[in-house]
């Protein structure tokens, strides 16, 4: 365990999270090393999103513990959570983009939270938009974009703060094969720059085409 603490950036240890309907995860153990790419593969309802939510500290385990960076669910305080989340990038399954702001401001918000200067915000946002190939859509509202473009904006927002851990929930779920492949290459590029990536997906066939450790989840149990 001590070795794990030293080598992993994030981990779940014998975690139990149960919803009111009895679903959830049981004895879930998973560690993600710095710079590692991990696929969390399982069918719908297996508990993938629950694992991700536990890692970005939206759900609190009733048993076991979760650790992300310096945060430890048994020892850290609730008020530390926002600061831990600043080192995490999250690509939500439903994107969760701000529809009353344009693409630029969606990304800028994350940097506003970090207290960056206007100049720094502009520099970083434009760079990340260029990385995901969306510079030309900077002043568009999310609802004016296609599903694939929205997914890329969601990814851009997740990486604009240069996170150490990127959590992506079915980032290719609703995309055509070509756009899904583009998205995968973006995720791998982010991983190559040093960020750990945990990608939840139900598509094992697609996973086989890319490099990364594969972890399976079924009925709330993690294996592999």
């Amino acid at each position, binding site marked *: 365990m001590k070795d794990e603490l030293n080598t992993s950036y994030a981990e779940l240890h014998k975690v139990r999270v149960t919803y009111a309907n009895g679903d959830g995860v049981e004895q879930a153990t998973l560690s993600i090393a710095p710079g590692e790419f991990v696929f969390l593969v399982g069918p719908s309802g297996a508990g993938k999103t629950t694992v991700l939510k536990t890692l970005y500290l*939206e759900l609190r385990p009733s048993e076991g513990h979760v650790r992300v960076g310096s945060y430890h669910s048994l020892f850290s305080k609730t008020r530390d959570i926002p600061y831990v*989340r600043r080192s995490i990038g999250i690509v939500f399954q439903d994107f969760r983009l701000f529809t009353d702001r344009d693409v630029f401001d969606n990304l800028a918000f994350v940097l506003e939270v970090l207290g960056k200067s206007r100049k720094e915000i502009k520099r970083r946002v434009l760079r990340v938009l260029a990385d995901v190939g969306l510079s030309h859509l900077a002043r568009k509202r999310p609802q004016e974009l296609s599903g694939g473009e929205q997914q890329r904006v969601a990814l851009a*927002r997740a990486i604009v*703060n240069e996170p150490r851990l990127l959590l992506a929930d079915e980032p290719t779920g609703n995309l055509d094969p070509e756009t899904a492949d583009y998205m995968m290459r973006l995720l791998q590029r982010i991983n190559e720059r040093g960020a750990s990536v945990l990608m939840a997906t139900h598509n094992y066939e697609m996973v086989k085409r890319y490099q990364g450790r594969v972890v399976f989840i079924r009925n709330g149990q993690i294996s592999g």
Partner: protein
Amino acid sequence: MRLSYLVKTCAMHFKRAWLSSLFSVFTIMFLLVLLGFFGLLWINLQQLVHSLSSQVQIHAYLSDGLLESQIEPLRSRLQQVAGVARVTFISKADAAAAFQHEFGKELFSLMDENPLPASFVVDVQESYRTETGIRGVAERIQAEPGVEEAVSHYKTLRLLNRYADAASRINLFLFLFVAAGSLLLVANNIRLVIGSQKERIDTMRLVGATASFIRAPLIVEGVVQGLLGGVLALLVLHWIYSMIGGLLSGFQLQGMEKGGLLIAAGGVLGLLGGCIGIKRYL
């Protein structure tokens, strides 16, 4: 947090719930106009009471049979009465001259002799210029031998004091009413903003926004609503004041210099309303 972000976010919230925000601003304005109006009424009544009480004098009318030699000792005795500041003698001739000056000579030409009594006009010390103070001094003067009757207009003072007290009580009630109303309005507006942005606020939290980062624009919004309400209330009161001032010739209305307090009250109520709204709904 950058100021431009704060301003932009507040403007966005205002745009999102503009009808409710405008309703809050105008209702706060209306409530503050009520508060300000009665506040100014109270200030002016106090001023009137103060001004009239400084003018209130006691007229001590002397008995007709009083000898010339008794007048000076009586003046000395009156001067010694507690609360008396100054005593001025008005002879029968002086009284007649004043009467003739005011009403003309015709009335006197019909009479054989001057019917007006000699009197002392007594100015009262400032600390005695209250209804009870003046009445006490008048009673002590009345008790002096040689004084037929001591007359003062303390009843007018009593009436004004009553009005001022009533205005003060109305003001306190209105202040509580305005405070409760404003707090409720601002808090409700924040509830609407929070309700319409629940998912957005959740997302803010998930990208690392602290509670204070999410709350600050909402609180500022409450303060801005209160301040705007205060400024508009001041403008309306100014207009009402100029209308009333035009009707009341010879009386200088006061209190508008304290108008800043109304704006400050709006701001404080907005701040408290914002805090309550956030505590209850966020």
